[in-house]
Every structure is written in structure tokens, then in C-alpha cells.
């Protein structure tokens, strides 16, 4: 025996409640003078004197509620009425696209389209994704007592969208219909969640400073207002954002205090770049190469917010150097064939004794004579350095060629560990005649 399909007394109706938008149009409103008079008529002094009052008397009386005309659809009341943004709000007219990081909000209405009252309605709303089923609303503990014929019960649900892909809003109602029969109504509203942004990062190490470049690309159909983009460094790092210098022009424009140009990323592929300078706050603890995460908050129409966090961004691991050699001072005047002293400093960055050391200028393979050579003993001896200790020393050099020259290959060698450290980067000097 087949049972005929049960007819439902109730039905769910759903409307997405993202923020409303401002209505935009081209107002077909004008000044009556521009319609009935020649454009140059006011050049005539007689017209200039007589016409304005005539126009005012007959045409531009203020509107009051006893005025049954549609004058407001024809004449301008203020000069800026022709700017088609009245502040009138419009409800979302379509479901639209939903993106990861946004909040899904929906008005749900259960209508009783039958001629009888329904009773004891247990309503449930759930969000079903690929991974989970989240309860948004459940009236099981306090069922709705009744919905009269042609009546309605409304509720609003909100859900932070944290997953991509297919989502289903599952609305169910369990109720007793006009005949006292217990009925079950399931309804499904499906939508897809897409990725609004992609973030590409590049990590570079320049002179032992780590730089993080982040490029944010907008994949949505609307412009995104970047409310906040913040880099949250990992525990042993600190970060500073680097910004380009802004133009100092237009400082005395009266609108300066009102208008700070908004950071807007264009829809459909627009990008914005951010640059951070990162530094290690403590030594020796950079074993992991996790730098941190980027937190992004954006807004769309009427401030509708969205929030996303990147995954952990990895950098190249930096092994801290055991010794640090740097140039403290180079004389400002260097003359050809005259010896000069370069002041250098060697620091032991480890927690144990290192050395003794030898310092020399490394020879490259070419047979060309170096432009700058050590004057005197070709190797300098330095004694041991205690943990975290440092020493200043001087290299006596002599330049054999004029003009811009390089001091190349200042190398430190640890005699006890038999370890040659990488040479100091080339140092440029200018050699003058004496």
C-alpha cells in the first residue's frame, strides 16, 4: 500500500541578510531655469534683476505635506540633490557570493500556508559542511506553541564561515498539523563558499636582516577595503612594517583632515603589497624557521567585515654566526702608495672561548697585483677571545692604484679549530694622488 505524499502546512522562506547597500542612481532633477530659460539669459541685467524672484515665486516653493504633487521627482531642492546617493538603503536583492572569513547571516521565516493552526513546532537550523554539522538554532527545549493559519514564525541565524566549498543550510520543522498528525519538514538551501584572497609571501635575508614581502590578491567581485593587515611574529621574532614615504604636498587642503585616501584593493585580481622587517629578539633560539602569521581584516559594503589568517609563514633558518667581523673606521683620505690604517672589530658571538686567530687578505687566483695590499707582515695575529668578548685591531694597508678601488678578501682564520670564516664583503675606497 503506497501512502500518498503528505502535503505540508509549513514552508521555510530564507533571505540572506548581509548588510544593505546604498541605492545609487542618476537623478533626473533640475533647476527650472535650466529648462525654461536660455542659458545666457542672466547676462541681460534686466533679466538678472527680474527673473530670479519670478522663478522663486512660481516654481520653487518648499514642499509640505499638503502638496500633492510629485515635484520632488522633478525639481532640485538643494544643489547636491543631483548627486545620486540619498542614503536610501536597499535590502540585498540576491544571494550573492559568500567568502571564507565572512559571517553568513540569514532571515528565516516559517509560513503556515494552511487554513488550520499548527502546534508544538520544533525548529532546527544547522549548517552542514563537508567536515561538520553545526547547530545554529534549536527550539526542542521550548517548542513554538503554535502558528496560526496564514501566520509566521521568524528567526535570524548567524554563522562565521570558516570552511571552503559546499555548504547547506538545513532547516527542519517537526510539528502537529491541523489534523493532529505529527509532520516533519526538511528544507535545504545550498551555497558555495569561495576564497576571497590569496596571499603570496617572499622571505629575503639581506645583510642578516630578514624581510617579508606579502602580496594580497583580491579574488572577489567587489573592491575590498583593507581595514587591518597585521603581521604577528612568532615568539622569538619582532616585526616592523616598512612604508613608502608619503607625498607631503596638499598639506593645506581643507579636505585633508577629512580625507585619508582609503586602502582599496580592486576586485577581480587587484593586489596590494606589504613589507615587513623582522629581527630575532633572542639569539640561539632560531632553530625553527617559523616567522609568524599574517592577520587580515577587510570590509565591504557598509563595513561588512571579513577576517582571515594565513598559515605559519616559514623563513630560511639563520644559523647565527660564531664570529662577527666588521669595519669600524676607514680613513677619509687615502693616498696612492701611502700606508693607511683600517680599524676593525672582531666579536665572539658564542658562549665559549674562541681563537687564537689570524687575519689576512685572501689571494684570488689571478696573477694581477691587488690594488690594495697589506703593508708589512701579510698575516696579523689575534689572541683568543673569551665568550661574547670582542677586540679592536688595525690592518695596515697600502693602495697601489688610483681612483675607486676595493679592499677585498679580509679573512679571519681560527688557528685552533683550523676554520676559515667567509671573508668580509668588498670595501670600496677612493685613492687620491698625494
Amino acid at each position: 500500500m503506497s501512502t500518498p505524499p503528505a502535503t505540508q502546512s509549513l514552508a521555510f522562506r530564507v533571505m540572506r541578510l548581509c548588510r544593505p547597500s546604498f541605492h545609487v542612481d542618476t537623478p533626473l532633477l533640475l533647476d527650472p531655469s535650466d529648462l525654461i530659460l536660455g542659458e545666457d539669459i542672466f547676462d541681460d541685467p534686466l533679466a538678472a534683476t527680474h527673473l530670479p524672484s519670478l522663478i522663486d515665486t512660481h516654481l520653487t516653493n518648499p514642499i509640505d505635506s499638503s502638496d500633492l504633487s510629485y515635484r520632488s521627482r522633478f525639481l532640485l531642492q538643494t544643489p547636491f540633490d543631483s548627486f545620486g546617493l540619498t542614503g536610501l538603503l536597499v535590502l540585498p536583492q540576491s544571494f550573492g557570493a559568500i567568502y571564507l572569513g565572512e559571517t553568513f547571516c540569514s532571515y528565516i521565516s516559517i509560513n503556515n500556508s494552511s487554513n488550520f493552526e499548527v502546534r508544538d513546532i520544533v525548529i532546527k537550523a544547522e549548517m552542514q559542511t563537508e567536515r561538520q554539522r553545526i547547530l545554529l538554532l534549536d527550539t526542542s527545549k521550548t517548542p513554538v506553541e503554535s502558528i496560526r493559519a496564514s501566520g509566521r514564525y521568524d528567526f535570524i541565524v548567524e554563522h562565521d564561515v570558516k570552511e571552503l566549498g559546499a555548504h547547506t543550510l538545513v532547516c527542519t520543522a517537526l510539528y502537529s498539523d491541523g489534523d493532529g498528525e505529527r509532520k516533519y519538514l526538511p528544507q535545504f538551501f545550498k551555497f558555495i563558499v569561495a576564497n576571497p584572497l590569496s596571499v603570496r609571501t617572499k622571505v629575503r635575508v639581506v645583510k642578516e636582516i630578514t624581510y617579508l614581502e606579502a602580496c594580497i590578491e583580491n579574488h572577489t567581485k567587489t573592491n575590498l577595503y583593507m581595514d587591518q593587515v597585521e603581521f604577528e611574529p612568532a615568539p622569538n621574532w619582532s616585526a616592523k612594517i616598512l612604508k613608502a614615504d608619503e607625498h607631503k604636498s596638499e598639506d593645506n587642503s581643507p579636505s585633508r583632515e577629512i580625507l585619508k585616501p582609503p586602502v582599496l584593493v580592486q576586485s577581480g585580481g587587484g593586489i596590494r603589497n606589504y613589507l615587513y622587517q623582522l629581527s630575532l629578539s633572542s639569539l640561539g633560539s632560531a632553530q625553527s624557521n617559523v616567522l609568524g602569521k599574517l592577520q587580515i581584516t577587510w570590509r565591504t559594503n557598509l563595513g561588512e567585515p571579513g577576517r582571515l589568517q594565513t598559515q605559519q609563514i616559514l623563513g630560511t633558518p639563520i644559523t647565527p654566526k660564531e664570529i662577527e667581523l666588521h669595519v669600524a673606521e676607514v680613513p677619509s683620505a687615502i693616498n696612492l702608495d701611502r700606508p693607511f690604517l683600517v680599524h676593525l672589530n672582531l666579536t665572539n658571538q658564542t658562549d665559549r672561548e674562541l681563537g687564537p686567530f689570524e687575519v689576512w687578505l685572501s689571494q684570488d687566483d689571478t696573477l694581477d697585483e691587488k690594488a690594495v695590499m697589506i703593508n708589512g707582515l701579510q698575516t696579523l695575529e689575534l689572541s683568543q677571545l673569551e665568550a661574547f668578548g670582542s677586540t679592536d685591531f688595525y690592518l695596515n694597508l697600502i693602495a697601489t692604484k688610483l681612483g675607486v678601488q676595493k679592499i677585498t678578501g679580509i679573512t679571519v682564520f681560527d688557528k685552533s679549530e683550523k676554520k676559515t670564516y667567509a671573508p668580509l664583503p668588498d670595501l670600496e675606497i677612493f685613492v687620491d694622488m698625494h
Partner: protein
Amino acid sequence: MDSNSPQPESTPVPPSSDPLTNQFTSLNDLAHELTSLQDLANRGSWLSIVDKVNRARSLSLLNTPNDHLTYLAYIVLSLTKLRRFQEAQTELDSLDDFNSHHYRYETYPKIYHDRSGSMVPFSLRWLHALLPIKLGNRQEGLDRFYLLLDFVREKLNRNGNDESVKVWRKREVFVVNHIINQHLSNKELSVCIDLIDALISRGNLDPVLLSKLGYVQMQIGDLDGANVSFGKVERIASESVENESGLRNLASRNKALVYLVGKDYLSAVREYDECIERDAMDYVAINNKAICLMYLRDLADSIKVLESSLERVPTVALNETLIVNLCSMYELAYVNHSDNKRTLNNWIARVAPDDFDSSCTRV
């Protein structure tokens, strides 16, 4: 007395002459039956205007060059309002180049005596730029608008009398506003902000403009920027000596928007109620209040607010956006919403002006 005796020849009625050499008290001295045209326009009877213009032309009732131009302006405006853009364009095409000597006062010294200059109504230049956009050629229209702006600015450089300068300044603002509209509808919001910035820098600290800047900023999502703009409006409103309701309501509505964006719908409704009490015809406050009620889960009252406004203040409440919102609410509230919409549509057909776009009911 012989009833067939010839009547004395009446002196010929002079053709409608330059009103400024006579004392004039009515609009009809400016153009043929202007009062009637103006009255029809106020009532939104654009179809009647089209008929009247066509009749006047076919019965050769128009005598002076400025009569013809005024009637042309009325018919092009009417056809544009009726969304019959191709016909409007055709009418406009019947004109020579705007700068032709045919449209200058000095070409007709017998009628206009010593007056010189162009008698082209400025609205024709505006519609000449707008119509290509309505017909789908946005680039052409936008170019024309920018050229029109140059034209207006050249007029301002001539340094005419005070009234003339006042009028051309108004026209400058008018054209810039329309340029902003085009960029706004194309979602080029940064350009809009730059244009508004330029207006403000030229000294236009009009609270309506500042409020609209706030709306653009809000639309983008720059809530901080919007707050600064609204703050300026609030200051102007509180310092205003006249305390006129228009300005007070403007500041209130801005405040309500800030509440709305912060999801404090109850406070927004409260602000809008104050606006409506001050001015029962503040349809923006009425519409936005209904929207807030929806976000407060009160669909029934949001519908009531809009329906009652249509009864009480139909001449302003009968607004396409308000109707769109009402129909969205019907679609959500009633399973048989097509009945509600059909009833609404029938009422609109009886009451609405000719230019009302009833496609907004989606029936």
C-alpha cells in the same frame, strides 16, 4: 443694427514678444503656455507633456525661437523620464549644433532687441551628455560630460554679473555631480572620492555633500572616514542658527547609519523615529527605519511602516527603491506574495506619476 455689418478690423496681436520689455507677472510671458507645462511636470504627467508639445508643434502654436527651444527641452526631458531614450535622442538630433547662430538672441533683434547670448536651455546640454549613457555608450557620454564641464568653466572665466556667475556656479556643481554619478554607478569609488575632494577644496562645505561623502566612505567600508565626515555635518547642524528640520534630520539620519553599521538597530530606529516626527515626509528615514526593523527580526512591522507611508505620504513614499524593499519583504513574508504584489501594482498604476518605473515590483 445690421448683424452682418463688418466688424472693425482688430489690431493684429503682436507675436509673443520679449517679456522683459513689458511688465510681466506670469510664466506664460516667458514661453507659450509655460504655466500649463510646468503644472503637468509637477504632477509627473510626462505623457501629457509629450502630447502637448506635439500638438503645439502641429498646430503651429509656437511663435518665437525660444518657444521652440523650451518646448524641445520639455519633450526631451519627458521622453528621458519615460525611459524612451531613443525617441529623446531623435528629438535632440533635430537641433543644429548648440552653438549655431540660430539659437542666439542677437540673431533676432526684432524679438529680443538688445539681448545677446545663447538661448539654448542648459538642460539640453545636460541631456545631450546623458542620453548616450542611457543608450549604452558610456564612454561617449562621459566624454561629453567632461567637455560640458570645460564649457561651464569657460563661462565662469568670462566674469559676468553676479546673477550670471551664481547660475554658472550652480551648473558647475550640477555637472560635477553627474560625473560623480557615472563613476559611482561604475563602482569607481576612489575616483568619486577624488572628485568630492576637489569640490570640497573649492570651498563647497555643504553638509549634504559632506554627508554623501560619508555614504561613499561607508559603501567602501572606510567607517573611520565616514565618521569624520559625519562629524563635520553634526558640527554644522549644531552651529546652525535657523535650526531647520532638513539639516537636523540629515545629521540624525547620518547618526542612524553609524548605529546601523555597528548593528545597534534599536538606536538607529530611535533616530529615524525622531526624524519622522520632525518631518513626516522624510522618506529616507521611513525606508531605512523599515530596513532596521527587518534586521531586528520584525518583518511584520517593517512591512507596516512602508505600507502606512504609502497611505500617508504617497507623493514621496512612492519611490522605486522603497517599493523594491517592500516587495522583498512580501516575498519573504507571504507564500502567496504575488497577490500582495499585484494589489500593490494596481494601486501604483492608479496613483503613480508617468515616470514611475513599475518594473521594480517584479510582478
